[in-house]
């Protein structure tokens, strides 16, 4: 058996130290990017749990920013690994992991959010490639991304799940127009992406023509595994903001608020421990559906905690810090005003799958309850009401 700790120490002794990117490239080439990936693709084909040893040994060395590369890392990479050609894996995985090329996701559309398979963006054959036309929405990082994972309709005469094909979209191609989408907080974390007659060569197709839904399911399953975030300490995050307010401001305390705060503290600690347990299961090589529980619980908690904080602060709580449009790249739950926190928390039960869709998924895939009767799975997409 390979001794990972020895390997990492040997790598560390010989790795380039002059430039962070050079270091990250060398780390990828040594198979120490994600050790459970195959050799030659940033990994060594080892059990996933050994990654923790690698990360521990390489603490303090140059690192990619997991938030900036989150979509590439959590969604594009596992999809490329499972469905990509050898050439696609070689081309995309290294700069994805080093952070030299950022990724975004062109899935949701104004007319197809939760009902993703109903999307209307068209991909039409054109010689040795495809012409893409349509509009995508809620695309974070699109204004920074070099590549996108793209789901488009290649056959409107088939039922909606069967007429889809999965592509890698070149975000620098002519016809790609990225516009900020301002949200209710005033800032624009997300974008609208207009695709007008964008040409993509056929070697940017991922998986077979018409197999886009199966490929997308790989992406979506990995999205849910990665949601839930890293480990916060007990009493950290939003509940920490609330308890700090309580401790620092005796004047805002009421008996009713005390009980509600303690309920929220208990709920936050329960959610935190659920996340800890889910990560332990993942590390033990047995990823369960617990990520969905963490996501649902966090969405509700964030809304209740920020709502209580706003109420406790009274008139002060109604002063917003700034409505100017910013291009935020990450949620700033702890750095901004309580009004921002409260407003931004409204997105937590919508983004990454609404709470309602998640409950359906839990009911059907985890609990095994029967699906709701549907009328849209056998009808050609073209004939569906939209």
């Amino acid at each position, binding site marked *: 058996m390979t001794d990972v700790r020895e390997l990492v120490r040997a790598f560390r002794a010989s790795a380039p130290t002059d430039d962070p990117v050079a270091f990250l490239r060398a780390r990828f080439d040594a198979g120490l990017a994600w050790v459970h990936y195959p050799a030659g693709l940033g990994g060594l084909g080892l059990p996933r749990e050994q990654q923790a040893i690698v990360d521990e040994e390489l603490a303090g060395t140059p690192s990619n920013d997991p938030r900036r590369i989150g979509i590439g890392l959590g969604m594009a990479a596992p999809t490329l690994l499972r469905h990509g050609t050898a050439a696609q894996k070689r081309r995309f995985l290294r700069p994805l992991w080093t952070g030299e090329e950022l990724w975004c996701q062109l899935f949701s559309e104004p007319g197809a959010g939760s009902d993703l398979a109903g999307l209307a963006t068209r991909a039409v054959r054109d010689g040795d490639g495809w012409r893409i036309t349509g509009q995508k929405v809620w695309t974070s990082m699109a204004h920074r991304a070099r590549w996108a994972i793209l789901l488009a309709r290649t056959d409107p005469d088939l039922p909606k799940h069967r007429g889809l094909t999965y592509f890698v979209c070149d975000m620098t191609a002519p016809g790609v127009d990225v516009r900020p989408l301002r949200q209710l907080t005033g800032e624009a974390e997300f974008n609208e992406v207009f695709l007008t007659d964008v040409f993509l060569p056929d070697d940017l197709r991922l998986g077979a023509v018409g197999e886009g839904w199966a490929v997308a399911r790989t992406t979506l399953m990995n999205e849910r595994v990665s949601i839930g975030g890293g480990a916060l300490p007990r*009493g950290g995050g939003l509940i920490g903001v609330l*308890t700090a307010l*309580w*401790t620092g401001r*005796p004047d805002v*305390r*009421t*008996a009713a*608020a*005390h*009980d509600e*705060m*303690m*309920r929220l*503290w*208990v*709920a936050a*600690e*329960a*959610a935190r*421990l*659920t996340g*800890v*347990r889910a990560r*332990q*299961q993942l590390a*033990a090589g047995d990823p369960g559906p*617990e990520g*969905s*529980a963490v996501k*649902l*619980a966090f969405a509700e908690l964030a809304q209740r905690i920020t709502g209580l904080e706003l109420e406790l602060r009274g008139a002060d709580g109604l002063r917003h810090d700034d409505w100017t449009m910013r291009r935020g790249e990450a949620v700033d739950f702890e750095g901004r005003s309580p009004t921002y926190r409260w407003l931004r928390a409204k997105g937590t039960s919508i983004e990454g799958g609404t709470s*309602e869709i*998640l*409950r*359906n998924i*839990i*009911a*059907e895939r*985890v*609990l*095994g*309850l*029967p*699906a*709701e*009767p549907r009328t849209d799975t056998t009808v050609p997409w073209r004939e569906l009401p939209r």
Partner: protein
Amino acid sequence: MNLLYSQDEESLRDSLRALLRSRAGSPDDGFDAQVWRLLAAELGVTGLIVPEKLGGAGASLREAALVMEELGRFLTPVPYLGCAVMAVTALRVAGDTTVLSRIADGSACAALAVPFAGPGGDVRVTGGTLTGRVASVADALAADVLLVPAGDELYEVAADGPGVTRTPVVSLDVTRPLVDLTLSAAPGRSIGPAQPALGAARTAGAALLASEQLGVAEWCLDSTVEYARTRIQFGRPIGSFQAIKHRLADVWVSVTQARAVARFAAGAVSGVELDGAEPRLAAALAQAHCGPVAVRAAEECVQLHGGIGFTWEHPAHLYLKRAKTTSVALGTAAAHRGELAGLLGLTPAGTP
């Protein structure tokens, strides 16, 4: 702290299920002496946390928590919580050896003579004997030894000895009988100071009761899902309606969280010291969270079973009664939230 189940715990679970499933019967009479003997003789679980040198298995409260889960799932009417968890913990802290050895070999069952819920009883010591009354004592019906706090001491009293009267209570939870205890000049042997022993027993009991509540909630979820899958109304299984699905998904989310909390609490009380802040915090968190989860799961179980859920013949009511009783027993969720606030320094309104 590892919140997963170990291989040993999973195999203990398998053995327990095999035994309990074969014995599942009517729990109406409140104590299944035969199952209790089998648990002691075949699996040795009554002495699980008794030290090895006293004839026990020397296991930690983590493994005992696993037993609590399965006893909760099957609603087995045996005094495991009162005897094998709380009395054993009190005896260990008090430094007793004789009663512990008898519990380990299955020849005796012990119970703490304190009310299952609420403040303590009123027992006086006069001339080396005990006199007084303790209401609503759990697991005392099957006990051979009563551990009675009086003054500042904990006394060992023979349950069928002179001056001891046990009067069964008609209680909400028929699967965990309560008795009113009356002592009149009953002889007792002091085994140590009462407060440390009772405090430790209470912390261990509250922490592990969460695992029982988890088992109760899991049974309620599983049986309701099974029912929703097969019960046809309006021409299709009721489990295909979103109104039902979403409620069951919410129960699953809360059960998933209760599992993490219960495992955490079991781990936190598995160390040697039970009077530290961390075990007390874990026990309070466990009761503040898992009690309400079990009640909600049982309420949803009754509701989503519809008419059959409201009958005596369906077991849903037994789980509902157990869930509600345990959510009050070793302190309500509100009381535990108060305890947590104290431990965390989150003072109530009106204090500077």
